[in-house]
Every structure is written in C-alpha cells, then in structure tokens.
C-alpha cells in the first residue's frame, strides 16, 4: 500500500515539472542556435536572473538534504562554518566576477579554458583544463541524480524505485536544457531558487513546532540531552583547518573555477549586475542554512527519544544519511507540504544538474573539439554536439548514482577539490601586477602535481599509501593547491612568460577598464569579435 503522502507528493512534483517545462518552452522560443546565445544567453541576463541563477546553481541537493543530515551531528557548528564559505563565495563573485566579465566580453570567452589558454598562449593548457573540468564534474552530476532517486523513492512511498526516479528526472533536466540552453537554465533557476528557499524555511518552521514545540523548547531539550550540539566542538568538521578548507573549496574555487557558475559571470548584462547579484547572493546562500540547524537539531532530539530512526539505520536503508530530512517531513508535515518540500529538493538538484550538463558540454564541444581540432566547425553542429554530450553525461551520472556512492558532501568536496587547482592560473590573470609570476609551463606542471597530490591524499590510504586522509584536517584539495602553487612558482622562474603583447592585451585592458577609463568600443553583445574591436582571435 502506498504511503498517505504519495498522492499529494506526486501531484505537487507533477505541477512543478509542468512549470519547469513551461518556462523551458518559453526560453526555447527565444533561442538563437549559435554558441554565444546557447551557452551564455548573449551576455544579457539582468539582476534578478543572475542573482537567483547563481544562488540556485551554487546550492545543489546538498543545501537542502545534506545540511540537515550534517547539522544533526554537528549542531550549531554547521551554521558557524557555513556562513563563512557562503559569504566568501559571494565576495569572490563580487571581486572576480566583473574582471572575468570584462575579459569575456572583450575577447569572446565562453569557458574558463578560453581565458587560461588565451593568457598563457597554450593549447595544451586548454585541453588539460577542459579534461580535468569534465572529469571532476561527474561526481557533482552523480550527486544530483542520487537526490532525484532518493526524493522520488521516499516521496512516492516506494512506488517509484530509486533507479527509475533518478533516470526519469535526469531526462527531464536534460530535456529542457538541450532545448533552451543557458537562457532556459537561468530562467528555470529563478523558479527553482524561489521555490527551494521558501520551502526549506516553511518546512523547518513547521516541523520544529509540530515535533518539539518550536525553537525555544527544542534548544531546552537539546540542552538536556545533547548539549554538545549547541556549541562548536572545534574538532572534525569544525576544526579550524577543516573549516578553512571548506572556505577554499566552496568559497573560492566553486564560484570561479567551476565552469557551470563561471559561465553565469560571462552571461550577466554588466558589472553592476554582478555586484548587486553578489550582495543578494550572500544573503541567500547563507540564510538557507539557518533552517537546517533547526531541522538537524530536531532530528538529533528525535533520534535520542527513539521516535526517529538513527543515522546508521537511515544510511543502511537508503545508502546515505541525506534521507533524514525527507523522512522527518513525511513524519511531521502535512502531505501537501511534503510534496512541496520534495519538489523544492528537486529544484535544488535540477538547478545545479542543468548547469553542470551545460558546462560539461561546452567544455567538450567548445574547448576540446572546436578550439583544439576544428576551429571552422559549424555553429549549429557545435550546439547540437553539445546536446548529445549532455544526454550522455546525464546517463553517466545516473549510472554512478545507482551504485549509491555515499554522502553528498564527500562527493561535492571531491569535485571542487579537482577544480581548486585552477586558482593560481585564474588569480594570475584577473589580478594584474607589475610582473607576471606564472608561466604556461609552471601552470601546467602545477595543475598536474596538484591533482596528483589531491588524489593521493584522498585515496592513497585505500591503496596502501602510508598517509592519512586529509592530513591535519586540511582537505586533500588544499594540500594539492599548496603543492600546485609551489611547483608553479618555482618552474615559472625558469620558463618563458606570456608575450608582452598578450599581457598588455589582457592585463592592460583590465587596468584601463577598472582604473583608467574606457579605451575603445565594446564589441556588440552577441556579435563576433572583430579586429576593429581590438579583440583577440582566441574567442
């Protein structure tokens, strides 16, 4: 017999998917089949779309599901830590976003590899960055497919098996993004961003009051039973170096080196749009974690009373403790709100999945195929090839999801650790200095060493390497970054820098745009770069 919440849940999820299809259809009607429009929406997205798109894309299923599971074991430390990396992410968008926007518009960049390859004058660096980007995206895509499966499985009371739900919603996501590209993804992000934010708060307030009587009584009872959850332990997740790692991973690397978010910076209409989006993003990204504290503490309290299954039981049954919030909702919220919650969690997952599919497709078709092998490739062919890549990647994510690889947080951290290694290359481009300290050889070797150190530090113990995972609580990706930076710096001392012409074309342009006034006409928003624009032929 189906659970009582299954009918309303599936009805609300159906309405949500219909809305997504409607918005996707509207975006499809506006689409021009060329790479500039398909990948970066002709660089014309305004404040509301940019803000909610960055926010919804940044927060995946991780924000809705994992945050409750983690705060059930870490308590208020989750809030203390998460406000750091979410606000740092917004500040990084503010600081670096307009710089990337200026360079993207001037030189026609669509991807991160475009910018890196242009500045360091290296085709091999483009391929390296593109391959790493494509590989490390897979865990993130997998995470969203896991969320799809879990949500539909629990939400339908077992009527829709995990594997079927994961596949069906992966296909829904890929459908609207291959039809409408960046515009569809960003417009739907607006719907998803509003939905997930509202529902996370609504469910937390309701569940806390229904299950325990409100935040005050909840804190009273936690104080009696698990007082450690009301302070910051300073060990494990909340150890200073562990939190510092998360700030580097999710605050620094995620917004500027993950292709899916970085493309949003190119797609914005102008720098003030990015600036105000950053301010609004800081509020959104952080405050969505506040309700997670209360749902997490509610879970912790109920586990103590025996009224809720333990985390070990949940993990044994569903393959991950991320199922805690859906289970809490079905136990204490009215059926219709359970449906709204599940649709909200789907919104969080879809709003990230769609952008990752697009980002990977652009990396494969634009960076690897077009820029490396076929510069004269037809625009329509490149866009259609990208659509095929998205379908393939969606299936790949689903395949790994049915293997149930574990806690979403670990997978997300692995993904971001991989792209964290691009930070030195990006900083050297977007923060001009009197000297260019890093060279293409230095950057190339640094990235390779950084990735090796990251993987060895993370997986070494499993293959017998005598090293602990994340030594001294510093994440493997950060150890990789340290090794990366040292190697890049030392090798750059002995290898040739980018040519003075390129340095002037990029650093000189940024200097004049940011501090010295305009120097020439901007190229048209959706037109090709021409010699008259003073643009490069790298775009």
């Amino acid at each position, binding site marked *: 017999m189906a659970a009582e919440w299954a009918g309303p849940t599936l009805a609300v999820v159906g309405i949500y998917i219909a809305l997504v299809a409607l918005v996707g259809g509207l975006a499809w009607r506006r689409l021009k089949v060329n790479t500039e429009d398909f990948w970066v929406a002709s660089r014309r997205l305004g404040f509301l779309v940019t803000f909610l798109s960055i926010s919804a894309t940044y927060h995946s299923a991780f924000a809705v599901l994992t945050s409750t599971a983690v705060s059930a074991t870490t308590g208020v430390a989750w809030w203390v830590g998460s*406000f750091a990396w979410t606000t740092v992410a*917004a*500040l990084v968008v503010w600081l670096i976003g307009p710089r990337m926007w200026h360079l993207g518009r001037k030189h026609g960049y669509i991807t991160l590899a475009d910018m890196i390859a242009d500045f360091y004058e290296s085709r091999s660096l483009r391929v390296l960055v593109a391959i790493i980007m494509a590989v490390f995206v897979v865990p993130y895509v997998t995470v969203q497919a896991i969320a799809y499966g879990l949500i539909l499985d629990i939400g339908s009371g077992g009527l829709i098996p995990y594997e079927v739900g994961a596949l069906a919603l992966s296909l829904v996501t890929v459908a609207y993004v291959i039809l409408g590209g960046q515009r569809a993804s960003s417009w739907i992000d607006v719907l998803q961003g509003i939905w997930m934010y509202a529902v996370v708060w609504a469910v937390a307030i309701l569940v806390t009051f229904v299950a325990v009587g409100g935040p005050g009584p909840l*804190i009273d009872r936690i104080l009696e039973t698990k*007082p450690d959850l009301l302070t910051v332990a300073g060990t494990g997740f909340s150890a200073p170096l562990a939190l*510092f790692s998360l700030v580097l991973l999710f605050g620094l690397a995620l917004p500027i080196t993950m292709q899916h978010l970085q493309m949003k910076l190119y797609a914005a209409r102008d720098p003030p749009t990015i600036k105000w989006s950053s*301010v609004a993003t*800081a509020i959104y990204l952080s405050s969505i974690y506040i309700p997670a504290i209360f749902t997490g503490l509610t879970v912790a309290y109920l586990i103590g009373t025996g009224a809720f299954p333990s985390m070990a039981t949940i993990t044994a049954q569903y393959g991950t403790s991320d199922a805690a919030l859906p289970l809490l909702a079905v136990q204490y919220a009215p059926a219709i709100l359970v449906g709204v919650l599940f649709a909200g969690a789907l919104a969080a997952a879809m709003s990230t999945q769609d952008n990752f599919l697009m980002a990977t497709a652009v990396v494969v078709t634009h960076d690897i195929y077009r820029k490396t092998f076929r510069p004269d490739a037809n625009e329509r062919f490149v866009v259609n090839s990208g659509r095929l890549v998205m379908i393939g990647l969606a299936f790949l994510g689903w395949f790994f999801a049915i293997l149930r690889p574990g806690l979403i947080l670990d997978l997300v951290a692995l993904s971001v650790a991989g792209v964290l290694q691009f930070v030195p290359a990006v900083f050297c481009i977007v923060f001009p*200095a*009197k000297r260019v300290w890093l060279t293409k050889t230095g950057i190339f070797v640094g990235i390779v060493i950084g990735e090796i150190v990251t993987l060895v530090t993370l997986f070494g113990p499993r293959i017998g390497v005598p090293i602990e995972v994340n030594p001294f609580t510093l994440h493997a990706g950060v150890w990789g970054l340290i090794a990366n930076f040292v190697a890049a710096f030392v090798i750059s001392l002995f290898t040739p820098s980018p040519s003075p012409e390129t340095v002037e074309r990029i650093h000189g342009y940024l200097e004049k745009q940011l501090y010295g006034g305009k120097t020439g006409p901007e190229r048209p928003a959706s037109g090709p770069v021409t010699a008259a624009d003073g643009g490069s032929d790298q775009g």
Partner: protein
Amino acid sequence: MQAVSTVQRSHLLPRRRVTAILVAWIFFIYLMGQWPGWQIANHVEPRILGLPFIFVWATAWWGALLATMIIAAWKVWK
C-alpha cells in the same frame, strides 16, 4: 622569466584608503565570527531569544558582513 607589464600597482593591493579600511573590517568580521573569534563566545548561556549565545554571535557577525556589503556596493565601490 617574468614578463613586466604596464600595470603600475598590483590589483591585489587597495588603491584607496576607504577600500583598505573596508578590507580590514571584513577580515575582522571573519576573525570574530569564525576562528579564533568564536572561541570567546563558544557557550550556550546567556541565551538570546531562547537561542544559544554562539549561534547569535555568529549570526550577528554575519549580519554585520551583509550590512557592510550593502553599504559598500551602494556608497563606496560604485
């Protein structure tokens, strides 16, 4: 070998006094709201609005950061 560019001063260094002050203030906020600042507020009592003191402490610094960002976007870094 490092190329020398025509950039007169690193973009990582503030060029205006108000920028330097804002950057220092934002660092201070993180030092207080995060490690090591949270160590001086890492207790449940006194509870404010029924919430643990450390929770309110972190939220207050978060609010200060948001206010700083809004003022900076509106009045300083136009």
